[in-house]
Each structure stands twice: as structure tokens, then as C-alpha cells.
């Protein structure tokens, strides 16, 4: 039957590979200067030659999510550039194939498969929304690829084929709520979000934590993605008079929400109520306008304004590459970590093989990270600090608090499931 017919392409590529190894064996002496030969560091047929290694970048550059994902693409390209300038990975220059997920989850799955099956990339840096990650996850697990996923997300996942370079929900939420309770004496919370899994799960974690502290949630509300009319919920907030508005609104809705909040006379600089968000990075503020969100607090792991040498170098390099008026948000920085973490793991393993890279990953640390220092946990998430920033009219966050220690990632928190 035709489905059992021998796979011609596979035979073809195997043939090509033997020819290649033959040729490289002849040239072995001259190549020795490069370090290890392709066959040694790549036993599984990835797209690795003696001088290059190919990786994939998979983000939406069209459709509604392009707004958010553009920064991640830029950060990944910057990191790859910098790594290449330093001599590459195991003596090989990184080349990348960029694919467009088009803000459409099945397209993400299709392109992920293309990158893994056709292009045989050694790693993929990509995805932004949880939905796109869930769509590509089975593909990565089936074809054994490696995905570096940059976004802060809801947790409840731990795949051997993904390194999560953003924070999972508990890291972002617990520290933030503890801080408003301790420093601002908050007693009542109004939870608000866009209607999909990340805000819902995050608010669930937040609600459990708030109730554990003996405090009160006075309202919880979700609006469809892309919703632009928030006057009703703003009225409800005014009526319930919570101490804290806990907002996880995303995308274009953000702009509408904050503009309408300000227009309705809720002045966030007065902190009555105080607004705490985990979804608005500097990137989003550009669309919202700094003057409309001034005084809001955000809990995440990175702000562009962080004052350390790593970050100064990163911000400068980023602006030199992509323009001086660009801003960098939490996810952009997390995306920037991806290629560096992968490089470190490959070098520790001495091989590009996915299994070896995976094995080498836990314990990898990065002291050059713009956010300071990160380390990969056994569960493939990062140990990182959580920081609270206060939004200024200039569109930047001013750091007001950071956790003393690194927060341990806990994607399956006890009792929150």
C-alpha cells in the first residue's frame, strides 16, 4: 500500500549525509581547527554543518498578535547576532529560519512541524500566547524539538521539550499581592481580565492567595479579547471601591481600558484604588500612552529601567539595532535569554543533540542576563526575581521593590489546580 512505500526523501537525505561525512573525513585535518566535526556534535541529523547551525524563530508577524510578538523576534535576532559575533556556538555560526505564525494557532502547529521535520532546526525560539504554545506542544514532543518560550504564562505545564524563559503565574502573582498587602495595606481586590486561560488561571491563583491571607475579592470579571468598552466595569469598580484593581487585560483592550479608566476620573497616581497589573509591559504602554497609566504598578521580572551593567549594555545594543525610540518589555527580555540559555546548554553538553541539550539544561545559569541572574530549574522554568515597578508618564517603570531571593518556579502549585 502506498502509505508503506519507502520514504524516498529520507533515503535521499541519508545518502547525502554519508556523502557529506565521507567528504568531511577527507577534509578532517583542515576542519580540525574548527573544533568538533558535525557528525560528533550532531548524531540525530539536525541542520548542523561544520560552520553553521540552523535554528527557527516562530512568532506572529501578521495578525492581531504581531503587536506583542514583534519585540520577541527583535530580541532573539539580537541575541543570535551577538552570539555569532562572539564566535557562535561550538564554533558554528547560528543561522535562523523565520516563520510567521500569523496569530493563528493551527498555523503555528503547521510551521513548527515544518521547522522540525523539513528544516531540522536545532532549536526553536518562539510562541507568545498560551494557545499557540498548546498548539505546537504535541509537535515538539512528537518530533523531539526544543522550544524556548518567552512569555509569562499560567503554569500548569512542564514539558521536557520546552524551556520557559518567562515567569509562571505564581512567581508573578504571589510576590505582587504580598507586596501590596504589606506595603499598601490593601484589604479588598477587584479582579479583571481578558477572557482566556492565562487571565482566568492567574486570577484563580490570585483569589486563592488573597483568601488565604484572609482578605476579600469584591469582584471578578472577564471581557472578550479585543473588547473596547469598559465603562460598565469601571462603574462597578467605582461602586465596590476596592483597594486594589488587579488587571490582566491584554492586547488592544488594554489601550481602551486604561484610557477609559483615566477619563472616568480614576486617577491612579492617588492609589485609591491602586492598580496592579501583570500584563502591561513597556511595550503595551507605548500604545496606551504613559500619561494614561501613570501611577499603576506592575509585577514582573524585568523593567527596561533596571539599573545594572548587563541591562545597560542590552538596552544600548537593542536600540542600536532596532532604533532609538524603541522600548523593551519583560517578554522581550525573556525572549533575549532564549538563545543564550540554549548556547550555554549546548556548550555544556558538547553537542547539539536535543536529548543531550535537555539533559544539560537544568542548572544552567546566566550571569549576563539583563535582569541580573537566572538559573534553569529542574522543571525547565527559570529561577528569577520578581520586581514591582511604578509606571511613569514617560512610559517607563520605576523599580519600587524586588524580592531579595530568586523566586522558585512552581508551575503546579499545591491546591491551586
Amino acid at each position, binding site marked *: 500500500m502506498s502509505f508503506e512505500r519507502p520514504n524516498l526523501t529520507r533515503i535521499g537525505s541519508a545518502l547525502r549525509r554519508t556523502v557529506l561525512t565521507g567528504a568531511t573525513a577527507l577534509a578532517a585535518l583542515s576542519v580540525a581547527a574548527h573544533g568538533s566535526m558535525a557528525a560528533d556534535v550532531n548524531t540525530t541529523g539536525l541542520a548542523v554543518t561544520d560552520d553553521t547551525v540552523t535554528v527557527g524563530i516562530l512568532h506572529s508577524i501578521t495578525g492581531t498578535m504581531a503587536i506583542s510578538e514583534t519585540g520577541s523576534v527583535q530580541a532573539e535576532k539580537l541575541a543570535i547576532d551577538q552570539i555569532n559575533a562572539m564566535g557562535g556556538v561550538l564554533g558554528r555560526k547560528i543561522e535562523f529560519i523565520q516563520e510567521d505564525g500569523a496569530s493563528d494557532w493551527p498555523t503555528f502547529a503547521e510551521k513548527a512541524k515544518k521547522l522540525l521535520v523539513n528544516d531540522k532546526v536545532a532549536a526553536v525560539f518562539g510562541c507568545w500566547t498560551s494557545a499557540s504554545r498548546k498548539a505546537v506542544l504535541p509537535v515538539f514532543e512528537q518530533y523531539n524539538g526544543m522550544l524556548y518560550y518567552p512569555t509569562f504564562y499560567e503554569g500548569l505545564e512542564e514539558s521536557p521539550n520546552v524551556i520557559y524563559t518567562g515567569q509562571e503565574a505564581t512567581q508573578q502573582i504571589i510576590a505582587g499581592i504580598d507586596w501590596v498587602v504589606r506595603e499598601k495595606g490593601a484589604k479588598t481586590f477587584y479582579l479583571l481580565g481578558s477572557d482566556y486561560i492565562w487571565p482566568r488561571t492567574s486570577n484563580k491563583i490570585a483569589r486563592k492567595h488573597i483568601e488565604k491571607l484572609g482578605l476579600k475579592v469584591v469582584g471578578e470579571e472577564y471581557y*472578550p479579547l479585543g473588547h473596547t468598552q469598559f*465603562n460598565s466595569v469601571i462603574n462597578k469598580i467605582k*461602586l465596590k471601591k476596592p483597594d486594589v484593581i488587579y488587571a490582566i487585560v491584554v492586547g*488592544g483592550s488594554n489601550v481602551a481600558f486604561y484610557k477609559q479608566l483615566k*477619563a472616568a476620573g480614576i486617577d491612579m497616581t492617588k492609589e485609591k484604588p491602586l492598580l496592579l497589573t501583570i500584563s502591561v509591559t513597556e511595550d503595551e504602554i507605548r500604545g496606551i500612552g504613559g500619561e494614561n497609566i501613570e501611577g499603576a504598578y506592575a509585577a514582573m521580572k524585568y523593567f527596561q529601567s533596571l539599573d545594572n551593567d548587563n541591562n545597560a549594555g542590552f538596552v544600548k545594543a537593542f536600540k542600536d539595532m532596532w532604533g532609538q525610540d524603541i522600548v523593551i518589555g519583560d517578554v522581550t527580555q525573556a525572549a533575549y535569554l532564549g538563545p543564550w540559555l540554549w548556547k550555554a546548554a549546548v556548550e555544556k553538553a558538547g553537542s547539539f543533540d536535543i536529548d543531550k541539550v535537555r539533559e544539560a539544561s537544568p542548572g544552567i545559569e546566566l550571569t549576563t542576563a539583563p535582569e541580573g541572574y537566572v538559573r534553569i530549574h529542574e522543571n525547565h522554568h527559570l529561577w528569577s526575581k520578581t520586581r514591582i515597578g511604578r509606571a511613569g508618564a514617560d512610559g517607563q517603570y520605576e523599580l519600587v521593590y524586588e524580592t531579595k531571593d530568586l523566586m522558585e518556579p512552581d508551575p503546579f502549585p499545591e491546591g491551586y489546580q
Partner: protein
Amino acid sequence: MFDGYTLSELGSILAMQGFAGLILFSVFVLMALGLAIIFGQMGVINMAHGEFMILGAYVTYLCSHIFQNYLPGLFSIYFFVAMALAFCASGALGMLCEWALIRHLYKRPLDTLLATWGLSLILQQAYRTIFGAREVGVSLPDWMMGSVPLTDLIEIPINGLFVMALTLIITAAVGAMMYRSGWGKQVRAVMQNRVMAGAVGINTERTDRLTFGIGCGVAGIAGAAFTMIGSTGPTAGQLYIVDTFLVVVFGGAASLLGTIASAFSISQAQSAMEFFLSGSMAKVLTLLTVVGILMLRPQGLFTLKVRK
């Protein structure tokens, strides 16, 4: 639902929700007015309507930049200039599209849907190429972002008032043009009977182009106004398209008055339900009600009696 509120608080709730509904109403009317002209009068299913609106928003963005950098003294009134320019830009683009695209399709109304869908893809990508994939922030003069406190609870957002006033003016202007001016008479004549209108000496081609241009221009003004309450990005236009069409169809496509009445009822229903239900469910229920009523009364709320 109402436990723990005093009577005066309840009064305030009512007032505030009513006002929120009025703002929503103005937004709907602004969105739908351009389409009511294009779809209602001309029968063109313009799927790129949202993109024409976003063009207006981008024009506003450019204006805000220019005024900030070169004419900071006049920044507080730049918005009026921006709206005028938005009207011109969207109108001009609309006329261009009518000439290049739509005029070949008047006999095939359903095909205009496909062609304008292609147009909307092209416009989206054009915005993305020119302005970048990220959203742009439109800065507004301070006086437009404040609010007027009436009581402790009730505060009237100025941008809401502004949108309402704008809606009133634009609606009056469009109404006057349609029903009081010679041009309006020509438009209605062409729509009712193209051949006969041509026979009595009306330049139907010019009328079509102008009508389409004005419809798009009104969309541009709406887009400019929406920078006050919404986001400006390449794909923001798509957020409005379903609501807009429903408002127009619900009102009875050929009637401006119907459009206004339907915008009013949909917006009040939605904002009332939003108060008692979660936002998502309110939206679903509103849409369901509208679809349900349309099934019972397919010709819309207000239509001329026609024999079929």
C-alpha cells in the same frame, strides 16, 4: 445584586450606567453611519470599513506628532485639524477604491464583500509596513482626558461628552446632506433606480464616487474619535466590523433613522446587561437578541414598506 447599596448609590448606578450606555450609543452611531451610507444606500458590503476607520486613527496619530514637534502651542486644538484631515484622507482613499474596484461590482453586491475583504488585508499589511506592527500611542491634549465630577460617585468623562457631541454634529450633517441637499436627492434617486436617474440627467458615476467617498470619510472621522477610547494598530479595525454591520442591518439597511434607533437599543441593552452579567456573557446575549429579532423581523426595525 443590590444588597448593601443605599438608595442614592442606586440612583448613581442608574445614572452612570445610563451614561455609559449613551457613550456606547455614540460610538455605535459613529461606527455605523459611514456604513449606513455605503451599505444601506449603495448596497456595497464594505468589509474594509474598519480599515478606513483605522486610517483616520493613524492620521490623528501623525497629526499629534507633527503638532507636538512643530506647533506645540496649538496642540490643545490639534484634534479638530486631525479630524478634518482624517475625513479627507479616508474619503480620498475611498474614492480611489471606488474608482479602481467598487464601480465594477455594482451589479454583484456579494462580490463586493470578497473584493473589499482583499482590500482590508492589503490595507492592514500597508499599515503594518508603514507604521510598524506595534500599536501606536496617540497623545491627546489634557483637557480631553479629564472628567467633570458631579457627585462623589458620578463623574462625567470629557471624552465621552466629546464623542457624543461629535456624533450629534456628524449625524445632523449627514442627515441634512441626505435629505435636504441636492446631492442627497441625487444619491437617493440613483439608489432607487439607477437607470431612471441616469435618464433624467444625474451623473450616476460621480454620485456613486462621492457617496462612497463620504461614507469612508465619515468612517475616518469615527476612527479619529476612537483614538480617545480605543487602540490604534494595524488590525484594530477588525474589532468593529461585526458590531457595525449588525447595527446597520438591525436598523433596516436603507434608513438612517433606523441605524440610530438600532444603535440606541443595542447599546442600552448591552450596557445594562454588562452591569449584571460578566462582559463576555453580556456580549453573547446582546448578539443573540439582535439575531433573534432579525429572524422575526428580517427587514430590520425601520424600513419603508416595499412590495416584494
